[in-house]
């Protein structure tokens, strides 16, 4: 009888870190043929429109960056938290917290000096997401509550807080829909390219990539955060205040997700609606994993998923394959990447048993 065993392997060389995600993406794209064929789409035509729809025209290319910006922020948020083994599944709720606070300020800051409005909103949105994320961090460190479950549950709490406010004090006067008034003009992110939605939030997201890379590589805190992730007990005995490190990690992680919400509000929707996020927080988990938790990796994986999401629109129009193919591909990508990561540490060996 032939059986397979999973065994530890020698560490792979550095290039593997780049090759493996690319290989995972290729395999995912090949597997995507299955749902495309089931949907009756013509295979090559579907792939063509998937990429043409995302990259083929100037407008679509810029749209891909527009879509990538919240994904990049939530991806960074999750990656930064996961690196310290703070299992933040709550980026969705933190994003909404940021959007909510930005709305409250954005509709009411008409009388403020214009130059102050956006900086205040951005800082407040960051803090809102960060504080919302620090709740599960406090529960984890002080009361040993599992962070996966608490961050997940808090997403729903935030959705209902938002619902209560949008049906209540924040509701646009005279509207029967759960939506807020529009934010004042000074609160809108500047559009940086004509005839597009390419906005300032995209630059903020790129800046965040650099900042997170800098924190990770060049600061003591980045080192401590990593040490906590590798082994929290060892870090503790090594003299690191693990409670405070996890708390600050949560604050930064949630803050990044909060900024994703600010961006969607101040550059895309201009008013708060219930479905301001189609699950960016959850996509962030996939993006963080596919990016190997590295900020530059997260940048590329967010661009990849943005291509899929934007391209799926055109593909759907041209071939009739439902746009939800993008969600299916995300789920598959996460699983494929997980399997690939496993084989960076382990290898399959065939054994013969008599």
């Amino acid at each position, binding site marked *: 009888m032939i059986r397979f065993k999973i065994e530890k392997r020698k560490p792979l060389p550095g290039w593997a870190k780049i090759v493996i995600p690319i290989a995972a993406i290729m395999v995912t794209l090949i597997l995507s043929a299955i749902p495309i064929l089931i949907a009756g789409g013509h295979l090559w035509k579907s792939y063509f429109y998937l990429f043409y729809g995302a990259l083929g025209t100037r407008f679509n290319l810029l749209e891909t960056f527009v879509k990538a910006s919240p994904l990049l922020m939530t991806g960074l948020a999750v990656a930064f938290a996961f690196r310290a083994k703070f299992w933040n599944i709550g980026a969705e709720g933190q994003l909404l917290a940021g959007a909510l606070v930005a709305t409250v300020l954005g509709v009411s800051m008409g009388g403020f000096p214009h130059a102050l409005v956006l900086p205040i909103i951005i800082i407040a949105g960051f803090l809102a997401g960060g504080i919302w994320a620090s709740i599960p961090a406090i529960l984890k460190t002080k*009361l040993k509550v599992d962070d996966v479950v608490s961050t997940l549950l808090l997403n729903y709490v935030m959705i209902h807080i938002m619902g209560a406010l949008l049906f209540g004090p924040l509701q646009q006067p005279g509207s029967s829909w759960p939506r807020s008034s529009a934010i004042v003009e000074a609160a809108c992110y500047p559009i940086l390219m004509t005839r597009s939605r390419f906005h300032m939030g995209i630059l903020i997201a790129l800046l965040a990539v650099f900042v997170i890379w800098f924190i990770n590589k060049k600061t003591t805190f980045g080192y401590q955060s990593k040490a906590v992730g590798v082994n929290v007990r060892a870090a503790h005995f090594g003299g690191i205040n693990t409670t405070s490190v996890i708390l600050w990690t949560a604050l930064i992680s949630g803050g990044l997700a909060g900024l994703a919400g600010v961006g969607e509000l101040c550059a895309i929707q201009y008013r708060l609606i219930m479905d301001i996020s189609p699950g960016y927080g959850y996509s962030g988990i996939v993006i963080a994993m596919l990016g190997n938790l590295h900020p530059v990796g997260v940048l590329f994986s967010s661009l990849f998923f943005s291509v899929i999401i934007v391209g799926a629109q055109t593909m759907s129009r041209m071939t009739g394959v439902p746009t939800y*193919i993008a969600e299916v591909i995300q*789920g598959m990508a996460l699983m494929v990447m997980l399997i690939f990561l496993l084989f960076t540490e382990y290898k399959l060996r065939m054994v013969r048993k008599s």
Partner: protein
Amino acid sequence: MSEILDIAFVSGLIGATMRMATPLIFATLGEILAERSGVLNLGIEGIMLMGAMTGFLVTFSSGSIWSGVLAAAVVGMILGLLMAFLAVNLGLSQHVSGLGITLFAAGLAMFIYRLHFGSPTVPPIIQPFKQITLPVLSEIPVIGPGLFTQYSLTYIAWLLVPVMSILLYKTKLGLKIRTVGENPVVADTVGVNVALTRTLCLVIGGALMGVGGAFLTLAHQNMFLIEVIGGRGWVAIAMVIFGNWDPVKGTIGTLIFGFLDGLQLRLQGVGIAIPFHVFLMIPYLLTIVALISVSRRAAVPAALLKAYRREEKGG
């Protein structure tokens, strides 16, 4: 007059509590089975959505509601098997594998629904389950009509609670499952197949999760909406912890949840001025509070979250 109204209100509330608890009972029992064997299945939310969609789709096209239930169970089993492949056979992170299953299954459910039905302005509907009134029992004053005028799936859920307790605590298989979840090394030494036991628990657990999801589209409602599960899978995860991994205690948790859910619906109907979102929030907050108190006396299966590979015994 007001007294009759009160009795009708109480009886209605009891009935609603039971109904709203039903999908959670299925899901919680399924999750308890998986976690007792040592695997946290975060795929639950996606498996429930897939069960809800499949149950609806099969009922819609076959006209047979029980075929829908069966199909939901089968889909749950397949996804449970996929979870087992990732988390048991390959030994990947249970957290991330489960989330992967949820993302994949949720995407797939929406994809298949859209593929089959397109985007109609009026969602298609099916002829849902009818409530069955049990003779004699339903004539018990006050509580009778609420408790014993229910859907057949609700009665099945209630039967499953003692069945699961007996399975876990009184049978040889249950002992195996618990041993695998507490100490896979010992289980392996005495000849229990760890991987097979865990796979079995994930598959059966997946079937329960699928049926729990199907209850929402085949009994509670008569249509499939994308937000139909609405976090109930995550609530079930919390109920498992709340109930200390015990089927009976977990079910008590689901009843509290069902009560608040039912109360919120009823107060909305009566026109009480509290925004209903505040009510919807309470169960989640209560669960978090419950998690705080539980974490101090947690009876977590000792091998939960730990992959088992023979070569790394004791490592």
